[in-house]
């Protein structure tokens, strides 16, 4: 059924269709309409779940961690400083291998205060052991929330579904609401491997030694390092699992099919722009206009950021002369984190080959700075006409007025 709604409502519909059983959240702009909608679904009995109005984001994730350990499907959502306030719990949820789903409605972080969009909040949680998916429009929000639960539960790793504050959260777009029966066919009820149960007492997340240790049956059990090794292994396996889930979703719902990189006019492209979130769709206009001017350009939207689908990304980009990375986040003192990841993927993939694409890093849109299509066209055109093929040693800033 098609509807015209905000991105936050699209997310709430996804959570409802996925049958989340415990939802805990704390208000923060621009996430609030999402959790308001969920509390409305629950109070009106449209949705059978527990809504827990906690006193902080730290507690929101505490509720989800505990509910999930007790065997429930749990969900939370936040933005910016709320996400940062959860930071300790974010690591905890991954180490405890809990299949939570969290929407991160992307917003810049303080100081100074900003309520507008960039990606610094979720990108700064990159190394916590969560899967991170970025979406480009409202249809992807509702679909990705549903897919995220399936992926999280398949690999026992929590998932962040990241979408742009205001640009997606508060804009209205038409999208198809999947029907409940099809969703139920796609996503079975959560069956935890371990759960808190008085009939099977066990102690979860106890202090774990540097070295291995025998259990009460005399079997040698893991140390901390083995537990963390398994998280890394399963994280890497999650790339393939995400691919399988995407295929299954497409079979049932007839859309999707690009879990890692969503390419637009990249087949013969000499220059490929790379981005995440709604900016990737804005860049489609840039690509169309520059194609009209005769430049062979394309756009690759990264949909799965962690685990990093390095092979799929390298395959998309390796034949290009130049790769232009547009990022709304920084690793201060170096460059954009996505750019570094892409360079690393290209380096490994084209090992032994004569030529790798040059990589052009750009920072833009921090704290909601307007991203003008004209500026993007100029940036891409400049790269296309660049005579030097060396990767530039300075970071490009778009829209900076200094």
């Amino acid at each position, binding site marked *: 059924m098609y509807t015209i709604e905000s991105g936050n409502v699209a997310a709430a519909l996804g959570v409802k269709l996925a049958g989340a059983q415990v939802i805990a959240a704390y208000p923060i702009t621009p996430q609030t309409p999402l959790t308001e909608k969920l509390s409305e679904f629950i109070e009106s009995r449209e949705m059978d779940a527990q809504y827990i109005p906690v006193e902080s984001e730290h507690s929101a994730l505490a509720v989800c961690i505990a509910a999930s350990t007790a065997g429930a499907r749990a969900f939370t959502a936040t933005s910016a400083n709320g996400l940062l306030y959860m930071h300790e719990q974010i690591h905890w949820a991954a180490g405890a291998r809990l299949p939570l789903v969290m929407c991160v409605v992307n917003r810049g972080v303080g100081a100074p205060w900003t309520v507008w969009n960039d990606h610094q909040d979720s990108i700064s949680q990159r190394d916590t052991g969560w899967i991170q998916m970025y979406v480009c429009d409202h249809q992807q929000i509702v679909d990705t929330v549903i897919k995220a639960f399936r992926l999280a539960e398949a690999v026992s790793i929590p998932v962040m579904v990241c979408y742009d504050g205001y640009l997606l959260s508060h804009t209205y777009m038409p999208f198809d609401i999947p029907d409940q029966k099809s969703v139920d066919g796609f996503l079975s009820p959560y069956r935890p491997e371990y759960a808190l149960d008085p009939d099977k007492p066990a102690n979860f997340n106890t202090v774990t030694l540097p070295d291995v240790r025998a*259990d009460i049956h005399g079997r040698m*059990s893991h140390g901390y390092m083995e537990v963390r090794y398994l998280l890394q292994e399963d994280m890497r396996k999650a790339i393939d699992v995400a691919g399988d889930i995407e295929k299954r979703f497409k079979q049932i719902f007839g859309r999707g099919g690009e879990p890692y990189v969503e390419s637009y006019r990249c087949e013969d492209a000499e220059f490929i722009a790379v981005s995440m979130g709604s900016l990737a769709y804005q860049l489609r206009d840039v690509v169309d206009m520059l194609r009209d001017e005769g430049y062979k350009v394309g756009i690759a939207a990264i949909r799965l950021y962690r685990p990093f689908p390095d092979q799929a990304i390298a395959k998309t980009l390796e034949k290009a002369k130049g790769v232009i990375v547009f990022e709304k986040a920084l690793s201060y003192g170096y460059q954009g984190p996505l750019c570094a990841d892409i360079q690393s993927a290209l380096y490994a993939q084209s090992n032994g080959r004569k030529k790798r694409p040059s990589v052009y890093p750009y920072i833009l849109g921090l704290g909601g700075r307007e991203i003008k299509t004209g500026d993007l066209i100029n940036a891409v055109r400049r790269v296309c006409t660049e005579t030097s093929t060396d990767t530039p040693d300075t970071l490009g800033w778009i829209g900076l007025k200094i």
Partner: protein
Amino acid sequence: MGTRTCGHKISYSEPGPGDGGRTGSWRVLRPIINLDRCTPAKRNTKACFICWLCCPDGVISRSLPPTINYQYCKGCGICAEECPMNAIEMVEEVSLIKEEK
């Protein structure tokens, strides 16, 4: 190759005794019950059992007579201190070990 491990992908611990090892080895003083003074032992009937109630480690039995699990008793001496009949004496382990040898 190192030791091959099996086990859980999370830290999931099953209940069992002696996580801290044989904590009896921590003991400097050993509580010894003088059955001639111990009320339940003397009367051979359920009585007193304050030592059982107060033991932080649950190593004293509520039985006739009460017994102490020396494998795990840490030798804190609360039982001796709280016994209303002064029936429990704290004896130096060193002297006992010498005797036992």
